[in-house]
């Protein structure tokens, strides 16, 4: 299995862990995409592309990077995401649009463009969230991450058998985003997780690896919840 793999939201957290996992796991050209200026890597096997994925120019820039990488595109991980949390009664129009455009619209636009480049087949993994099952104060985020599930299913049907499309729904993961949660709230959240801890970005990277590679060659249209059992407790 050789070729190029694109990872969005690659500067931090889960996206960075996925990018570094891929670069260290095989003969891949890994294209790390993010709008953040801190998009730098020590590993020269990772090609950073700093773009705004909510624009057509961003999609074009990623396609150009795939072309420069010089090997066929075999994978895409749509991980870029933002939050603008508030209760539904207080949620602004802007908060809805911003979250939908980044979390769902950009993934849709990029997936459509990248699927056309997977001439030798491939795998797309969308990073949804356990919030797609519902989470207080996240109407917009839930809507976007639930929309990713629909995108996953529709593209799994339309791209089969050439390209597989799956989603991962992480629960509470120890990223910068989680570290911004007040300590007492975080303790309660962790207490509700049967695994009794937050997940790590590296653990999500392993799940993505499974879905990107032939390890999951008969899996498509699936949502894999990686939340330490939180959806049951």
């Amino acid at each position, binding site marked *: 299995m050789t070729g190029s793999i694109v990872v969005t939201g690659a500067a931090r957290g889960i996206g960075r862990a996925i990018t570094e996992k891929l670069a260290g796991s095989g003969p891949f050209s890994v294209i790390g995409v993010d709008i953040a200026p801190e998009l730098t890597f020590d590993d020269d096997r990772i090609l950073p592309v700093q773009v705004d994925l909510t624009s057509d120019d961003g999609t074009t820039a990623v396609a150009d990077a795939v072309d420069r990488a010089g090997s066929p595109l075999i994978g895409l991980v749509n991980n870029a995401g933002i939050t603008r949390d508030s209760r*539904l009664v207080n949620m602004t129009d802007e908060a809805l*649009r911003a979250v939908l455009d980044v979390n*769902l619209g950009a993934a849709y636009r990029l997936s459509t463009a990248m699927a056309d480049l997977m001439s030798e087949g491939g795998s797309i993994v969308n990073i949804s969230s356990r919030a797609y099952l519902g989470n207080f104060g996240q109407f917009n985020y839930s809507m976007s991450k639930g929309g990713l599930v*629909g995108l996953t*299913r529709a593209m799994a049907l339309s791209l089969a058998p050439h390209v597989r499309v799956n989603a991962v729904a992480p629960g509470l993961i120890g990223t910068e985003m989680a570290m911004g949660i007040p300590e007492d709230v975080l303790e309660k959240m962790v207490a509700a997780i049967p695994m009794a801890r937050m997940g790590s970005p590296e653990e999500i990277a392993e799940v993505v690896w499974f879905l990107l590679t032939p390890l999951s060659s008969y899996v498509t249209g699936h949502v894999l919840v990686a939340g330490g059992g939180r959806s049951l407790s």
Partner: protein
Amino acid sequence: MNIHRAEPVGSDWGEVRAELERAFFMARAAALAEESFVFVVHHDDLLGRRGAGNAMVATGLLSAARTAAVEGSRKGWTANVLAYDNDSDPGQVTDWAERLAGDSAGVTGELIRLGSSHLGKALP
């Protein structure tokens, strides 16, 4: 009554976002009035059978309703999703939507599926 029926959309992201926005406007107004609401979607769209645009709308609304239900449970209003299929009687769809948007008898955060096309398929 607070009922939003998802309209078919094409492949353009602007259409998808506009449809999700319309549902949001209805849901927010309902929440502000502390009233229950329901989203109505086509079952095929929950499984992605009628294109990515319609699928993103249907599953986006389902997840949003689940989150709204969490918030509404503290205030006494409900949020649900009703899914119909090609064999569903339009009158029954309306009856069920009005029932869920009115007195849902404590049912909240649920996906209620009319017809039989969901049998043996994935749980959304």
